[in-house]
């Protein structure tokens, strides 16, 4: 009952409230409706899009597979074409295999030829060197044989290399027989400064004057007249000097002769020292000279005769020489034209 009363009290306002609430809700209803519609449409849109995406993916896969299948077919063809083309290009322009092979063959042939040529060259050099060595050895042996020629065996005495106990002589023996003896090298004599007579004689001999070896000119006019024999003329022109005996001998001939005599006697000496007396018995005896020797007035020598007694008057310090010139009694013997004195 109480509720009823309550309800009846509010019944007048219920209707207003009802109308009022409904009218208030109306715009909201619209809004909410619109919102719901929006949300639903959006959601459906998403759904459809997802579906389309899914479809897209499937289509892509199918297309992919289809296109790859197509491509593979195409690829076989293209590759074949390109293969052919590349091979052709390489063979023609870049790399000729057979040419390379040829080239390598030629190179190896050249190598062999060069190797052979170099071998020959080396051999030739070897041979030349060996020959030069042999020649040098030969010369050395020859020179040694010439130096040792005196070791050659004679008829009486067999030499070192020709021992009688051997069957045949040593090869050196034959070498020595072939060798020419080596002369000693003469020591070079220095030129004498002073010209002595012998030199002059030597240079006036027939050998020493130069004969002119020059040929006469071709167009020479022949000289007129009877001529003497040319050998006679030359003999006369180049007649050697015939000095007199006085000139030919040196001026101190006596002194030289004395010295030569002394030298010869010295050769025969056993000992150079003077002999001493054996005994000393006479050691303390004084020597008593003879009368001739003890006097002041001895025989006068020629030297003292000619020189003054006062040494201050002497011109030079040197002693006079003893000069004994030769005389010319027989110097012209046999050299004159006259036949005086010859036995007919």
């Amino acid at each position: 009952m109480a509720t009823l009363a309550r309800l009846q009290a509010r019944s007048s306002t219920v209707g207003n409230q009802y109308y009022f609430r409904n009218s208030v809700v109306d715009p909201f209803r619209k809004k909410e409706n619109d919102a719901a519609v929006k949300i639903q449409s959006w959601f459906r849109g998403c759904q459809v899009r997802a579906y389309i995406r899914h479809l897209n993916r499937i289509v892509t896969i199918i297309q992919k597979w289809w296109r790859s299948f197509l491509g593979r077919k195409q690829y076989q063809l293209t590759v074949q074409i390109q293969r052919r083309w590349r091979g052709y290009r390489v063979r023609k322009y870049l790399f000729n295999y057979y040419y390379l092979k040829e080239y390598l063959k030629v190179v190896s042939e050249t190598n062999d030829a060069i190797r052979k040529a170099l071998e020959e060259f080396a051999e030739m050099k070897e041979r030349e060197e060996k020959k030069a060595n042999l020649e040098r050895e030969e010369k050395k042996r020859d020179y040694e044989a010439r130096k040792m020629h005196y070791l050659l065996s004679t008829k009486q005495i067999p030499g070192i290399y020709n021992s009688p106990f051997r069957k045949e002589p040593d090869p050196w023996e034959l070498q020595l027989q072939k060798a020419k003896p080596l002369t000693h090298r003469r020591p070079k004599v220095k030129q004498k400064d002073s010209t002595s007579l012998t030199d002059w004689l030597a240079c006036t001999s027939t050998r020493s004057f130069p004969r002119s070896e020059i040929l006469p000119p071709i167009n020479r006019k022949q000289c007129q007249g009877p001529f003497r024999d040319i050998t006679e003329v030359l003999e006369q022109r180049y007649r050697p000097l015939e000095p007199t005996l006085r000139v030919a001998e040196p001026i101190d001939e006596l002194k030289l002769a004395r010295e030569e005599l002394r030298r010869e006697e010295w050769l025969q000496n056993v000992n150079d020292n003077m002999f001493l007396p054996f005994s000393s018995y006479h050691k303390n005896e004084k020597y008593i000279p003879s009368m001739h020797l003890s006097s002041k007035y001895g025989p006068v020598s020629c030297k003292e005769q000619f020189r003054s007694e006062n040494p201050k008057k002497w011109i030079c310090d040197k002693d006079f020489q003893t000069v004994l010139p030769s005389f010319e009694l027989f110097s012209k013997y046999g050299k004159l034209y006259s036949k005086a004195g010859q036995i007919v």
Partner: protein
Amino acid sequence: MSQRQVLQVFEQYQKARTQFVQMVAELATRPQNIETLQNAGVMSLLRTLLLDVVPTIQQTAALALGRLANYNDDLAEAVVKCDILPQLVYSLAEQNRFYKKAAAFVLRAVGKHSPQLAQAIVDCGALDTLVICLEDFDPGVKEAAAWALRYIARHNAELSQAVVDAGAVPLLVLCIQEPEIALKRIAASALSDIAKHSPELAQTVVDAGAVAHLAQMILNPDAKLKHQILSALSQVSKHSVDLAEMVVEAEIFPVVLTCLKDKDEYVKKNASTLIREIAKHTPELSQLVVNAGGVAAVIDCIGSCKGNTRLPGIMMLGYVAAHSENLAMAVIISKGVPQLSVCLSEEPEDHIKAAAAWALGQIGRHTPEHARAVAVTNTLPVLLSLYMSTESSEDLQVKVLFPWIFRYTSAEGGQLSTT
């Protein structure tokens, strides 16, 4: 006192001086006397005797000075410090040939020790007089002057330039054409020492027309002369392609290959150096060398030598093979690989082993074919052992390992994989 007695005093003095200077010159030939001589103060005495009136004393004094300066660089410096050089240079211009020879000997002896001493010689104006001596008639004087110029130009590029500026090169080329062998030798060595420093100097030598004359003289039988000529040609050709081409145009192939068969070790070494310097520039030049049969000759030469004489030949093979695979194949068919592997295994020195390993690497790196050709000769175990061994140097190890890393991956199976 009579005139005779006065003159006799002078004669005695002259005899004493002559005797002194001759004895000093003789003593200076033995090394053990030189210390004593120096301590006795021989430098200043010889310096005064250089100005002597009598020509023989001057010459002998110069000879003695030369021998002393030759012995070591302290004495050479003492010669320079005592101001002997200007006097020498001055009288070099006017004296007779014996004095010129002796004075050029002194200059040579001083100039050979160091660049500073050579610079001192250049500074006192010796180059002009030496070049004048090169024009002298006597071949001994020319030889002494050329030798002095050679020792001066040997040290560095500036000194060589100074020598060239003094106009020595055309005269040296004339000296090469002289008949005396000693003079030819010295002139060729002088040209070689001038040309070795820079391309411009080498160009100057070539412009003077030296290459044709040098190429003609390769046929001369004297071994020392050949050695100097080949050295000169290799110094010229090492700088650039043009110079190498000019040397090749002088028609040295195939004559040079006969030098590879010479008895003398140095001739072989210099001949292979020359071929190496020519072949290293471009593939065309290497091709030229291969076409002339140079590869076979060099391989034979390597086989007949030992030690350092082999090194230029090994490097030449490496250079030829490095240019292209055809050339590497040419080296392989000339039987180069067995020879290189023999070098690798039997040489005791590290740098030669490194060079052989490098050359093998250059041969084998182009294609699998090449690698197989190298592997067939069983060099790979040797290379591996070299790499592993503790005593081989860093350089050797690097050279051994590097080219083969690539080849291991791309080579054929079989033999290679077993190593």
